[in-house]
Every structure is written in structure tokens, then in C-alpha cells.
């Protein structure tokens, strides 16, 4: 256990080192230096840069003249809200489809689901998002085109999570604002969740099939345990472990996807902010955004590692 924690910490250090070197290089691209360095040597400047970062000074965006860290924190909740919602969608639907397919193995339902998931997996989401907008927003008018909420709801940003903020405005708008915000989330979330959903469905299916072949499932069957119980209690728990391990990959897929999704749906989150910064060559924001997003990815991976240690007793308590 201690060994694995040490290993994690080592990885973390290397990751942060590599990352800060990258963002340091990024920050050096700026025409106007984003931090007032004392030294001329790039090597020492790097350490000064780290010092600045630790002190919470991530620079001032060259265009909007705002603090990068503050800007990031302002945009971040929108992204998180989208990601969390999409992830919930992807995980629940993906798991359900995967389980369904694995129990109907080889049947038409299985084949249909797996073909669909391959289609979803191959979907260029920038196109997919546009198709969805074209169909549901512009042609059918079922969903809004962009934004997080209709403007007739004047929502004071307390948490900047629109779903929460709308609930805090409950006495003003009732649930209308909340539902409206949810309505705005649907299309972006569907777009973003498509690929992870497909991956999760496929993974669940194959992992579940592998587990269902294992000897301990045979043991469970010999005890006369019902099929449902075998799947939910005995198989799924073990089948989820490989799925959890690829969640690290998922988060990077999601992070890439969220940039595109925000761009398509004018979602005022980090991705759009970052793209804007790139197109305006606002290096202070670029380095800050890349740094912050990566730290989140790293943190997520770390949490994931601990989670899989927790879920897998073999890793938790080595014999």
C-alpha cells in the first residue's frame, strides 16, 4: 500500500514537472512576459514561474486583462456541469446497453447494440453535434441552440453551476429555470457522451462476457443463484474493474470532446475560453488553461487509481 502510494506520488511529481515545463514554454511564447521574472536565465525563470504558480499568480490575460486563474475558475463550473452530466449519461446508458447486450449475446439485440456502439464510437463529434443542432434545434425546434439558460431567467451566479444556481433562485422562478437549464444541457451532453457511451457499452459487454465465463461465476451458478443476482452482484463488480482502469483514457477523451462541444454549442466553459485564447494568442490564458485542465486530468487519474485500489481487494490488501 505504502509502496503504491509512493509510486503514485512519484508519478504525480513527474507529471507535474513535465506539465509545468510545457506550460512554462507556452508562457514564454507571449509577446509581453506574463510574469515579472528577476532572472534572465530560462532555467531559473522556470523556478520563479513555479513560485508564481504556487502563489496563485497565473498571469493576466493579455486581451481581457483579467486574472487567468480567476477567469479559469469562472469558466470552469460550466465545463464541469457539462462533463458531469454527460458522464452520468454515458455511464448509465453505456452500462445498461453493455449489460443488455451481454445477456443477449449473439442475438439481434446484441448485434444491433454493438453495431450502434461502433457507429457512435466512430462518430466525429464535431459533425455529430452539428447534425444534432440541425435536426433538433433548427429543424424541429425541440432544443435550444446554445447557451446555458434562456435569458428571461436572470440568474445570479452563486456557484456558477447553472443547475444549482437555478435551484437557489427557486422562489423567483420555481422549477422553470432549473428545467430550462436542463433543457439547454441535453444536446451538448448527448454530443459529448456519445463516444464514451459507446466505449463503455463495448467494454462492459466484453468484460462482462469474460467474467461470465470465469470459474467463480460457474460456482455461483452451481449454488442456484438467480441470473440477475449473478450479473449484478457477482459479475458486474469484477467486470467494472477494467472499465475503471480505462476511465483515465475516458477522461482525456471527454476533455478533448468538451473543447469541441463547447465550441459547437457556444457553451461558456473552459474549452471555448481556451480556443478563444488560442485564436487570439493570449498565452497567459493558454498556459493557465492547459495547466489547470491537465492538473484536473492528473487529479482525476489519481483518484481513479485509489478508487480501483479500493474496489479491487487484491490491490487493497496484498496477501
Amino acid at each position, binding site marked *: 500500500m505504502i509502496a503504491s502510494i509512493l509510486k503514485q506520488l512519484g508519478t504525480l511529481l513527474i507529471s507535474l514537472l513535465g506539465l509545468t515545463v510545457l506550460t512554462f514554454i507556452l508562457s514564454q511564447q507571449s509577446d509581453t512576459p506574463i510574469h515579472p521574472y528577476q532572472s534572465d536565465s530560462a532555467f531559473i525563470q522556470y523556478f520563479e514561474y513555479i513560485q508564481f504558480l504556487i502563489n496563485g499568480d497565473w498571469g493576466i490575460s493579455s486581451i481581457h486583462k483579467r486574472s487567468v486563474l480567476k477567469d479559469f475558475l469562472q469558466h470552469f463550473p460550466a465545463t464541469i456541469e457539462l462533463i458531469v452530466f454527460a458522464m452520468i449519461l454515458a455511464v448509465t446508458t453505456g452500462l445498461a446497453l453493455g449489460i443488455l447486450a451481454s445477456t443477449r449475446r449473439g442475438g439481434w439485440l446484441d448485434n444491433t447494440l454493438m453495431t450502434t456502439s461502433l457507429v457512435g464510437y466512430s462518430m466525429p463529434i464535431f459533425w455529430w453535434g452539428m447534425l444534432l443542432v440541425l435536426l433538433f434545434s433548427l429543424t424541429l425546434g425541440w432544443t435550444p441552440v446554445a447557451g446555458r439558460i434562456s435569458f428571461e431567467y436572470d440568474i445570479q451566479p452563486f456557484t456558477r453551476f447553472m443547475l444549482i444556481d437555478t435551484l437557489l433562485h427557486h422562489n423567483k422562478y420555481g422549477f422553470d429555470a432549473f428545467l430550462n437549464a436542463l433543457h439547454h444541457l441535453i444536446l451538448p451532453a448527448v454530443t459529448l457522451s456519445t463516444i464514451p457511451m459507446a466505449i463503455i457499452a463495448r467494454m462492459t459487454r466484453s468484460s462482462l462476457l469474460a467474467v461470465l*465465463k*470465469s*470459474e*467463480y461465476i*460457474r*460456482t*455461483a*451458478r*452451481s*449454488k*442456484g*443463484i438467480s441470473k440477475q443476482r449473478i450479473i449484478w*452482484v*457477482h459479475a458486474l*463488480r*469484477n467486470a467494472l*474493474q477494467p472499465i475503471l482502469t480505462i476511465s483515465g483514457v475516458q477522461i482525456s477523451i471527454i476533455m478533448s470532446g468538451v473543447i469541441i462541444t463547447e465550441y459547437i454549442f457556444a457553451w461558456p466553459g473552459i474549452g471555448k475560453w481556451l480556443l478563444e485564447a488560442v485564436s487570439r494568442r493570449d498565452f497567459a490564458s493558454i498556459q493557465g488553461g492547459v495547466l489547470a485542465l491537465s492538473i484536473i486530468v492528473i487529479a482525476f487519474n489519481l483518484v481513479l487509481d485509489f478508487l480501483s485500489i479500493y*474496489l*479491487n*481487494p*487484491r490491490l487493497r*490488501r496484498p*496477501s
Partner: protein
Amino acid sequence: MGLLQVENLSVDFQTDNGIIPAVDRAKISINAGQVQGVIGESGSGKSVMALAIAGLLSPAATMRADLFNLDGHDLTRMSAGERQKLISNNISIIFQEPTSSLNPSLTIGYQLDETIRFHSGGTRKQRYDKAQELLLQVGIIDGKRRYKEYPHQLSGGLNQRVMIAMALACEPKLLIADEPTTALDVTVQSQILDLLLKLNEEHNMALMLITHDFSILSETTDKVYVMYGGQIVESGRTYKLLSQPYHPYTKALLNSVPHYGMHYRKGRRLFNLKGSTPSLDHLPVGCYLGPRCPYANRKCVQTPELRTLKGRKVRCHFPLIEDDS
């Protein structure tokens, strides 16, 4: 009174390379409290036969039987659900690899408790007590501690005991043990076998022991089935069958292993069958042993039937009876 009677049990596997007849017209009968053995080389269909009896075949398998009587019920006339219920109430099975037969992410206690709940129910407290009692019965003294542990924290021998405890929780009339000791160390092997025999006596639980080892069979069983290529080639009372095999294959099996304690001159060649075990998707015509058999002649291209000879069943055109007169 027969506990289990199976006649002409066949199991086929549907594979990409065609149909594999893993078990071919097997005939088995076990009485309550009896200990029987099945021996045969790897791939001869022992495990598949056991799984077929325990109703645990994978969906790729199709199973047929002319007669399948368990505890007085005719299973061939039952719906799948009823059959499964009856089987799981009467037959328990333990496998070669105890550690992989237990769910790695659930505690021993949970798995045991679940089994008890499904079979006898009871309150949580009652089930816990029952579990502790079972663990004690299979010789696990620190049951309280083990209850909370995961399979990977236990040694193979302990896991096998847990498997047995779980099997006992179902209070089966027949316990099938599929090579229960092969994966274990020599010293542990005998402990497990002792335990199984003890349980057989105490609970009057019939035992079907699948193994490679003649010495185990000779010590424990009343009756032995010898399998080759999915078929039972010889069966009969253990002592007689071992001391005087009728089937050339049984004889080869017995003679090809130098047994410790039988004094050989160093360098003496062992008796062996030429060639190797045929794979089930390319079985020879007629007698499956034919191409390897030193006694074979032209007649062996015809499929031999299971014959009854002096209280034994043999599937051979030229049983080795003449030798013993």
C-alpha cells in the same frame, strides 16, 4: 436405491471447427453415500461430464440423455427452471482451482452467507452462526477472522475448504469433486481428501471424485469409471479394475507411470502407448484407441459397444480377460 442414474449422456460443443462430442453416451449410477471415481487423461471429458450432471454447461453445449434420474425425479421431463432448482438442491460441485472458483471481490463470508441464504434462509445472525459452524466443520478454526477476508488472502488449501463449506451449505446428496487436490501441495492434498471422506461418512453424502491419480482412487472409491476420448471405456469395482484391467487403455494408464516404491532397475523402459491422445474434433473411426492400441486389428474400425463382462463394463472388442485365467 440409486441416487443418480444417467444413461447415454452425450454432450456436444458447437465450435467454429464443427461439433465436438465431449461426452459420448456415458452411463453412470451412484447410490446414496457411495464414493465413485472418474479417471482419464486430460481432455477425456471428465469435467464436461461433471458439469453436465451439475447442470452447469455453457450455452455452447448441447446435452442429451436417455435417462436422468436424480433422487427419484426424472429430470428429462422437467422444465429448465425446475431442473436447475432440483440439481442445485441435491448436487454440489467443487473445482480444481479453488482460488479462481471464488469471487475475488467478495469476502469469504459474503459468499458463504449468500449460499446459506439461498438454501436455508434465516436471520443474519442464524446465517452467521451456520457459516461459522460450516467453517469449523471443514477444519477452519479461525473462522471469525477468515469470514471477513478475501479469497486472495487465503492459501489454496484454505480456499478449497471454503469451497467445500459452501458446497455443504447446500446440504447436497451428491458432491462432485473435480480434481479437488491437483492444484494443491502434496501434504495439503491428503488433508482435503481426508476431509471429503469424513464428510461422506458423517453426512452420508455421495462423492464423485475426478482425478488423475490411481493411488487416490484405490484408497477412496468403491467404483471407477475410466474415460478416453469422451467415452467411458471401462467401469467397475475399484479394486478389481485396478488389479486387473480389462481395457488396454486402463492397463496402459496403470503401467506407464513408474510408481514410487515399485522397484525398477534404473533405465528400464516404461510401458507406453504409441502416438498421442486424439483430439475430439479428429477422432479415429471405430474404436478411439484403435490406432494406438497394441492389440488392435481390423475389427477395431467398428465402434465397440459398452459390454458387461464379469460385473464390469468394457468398451473394447478384445478385452484382456484371457490373460488372467
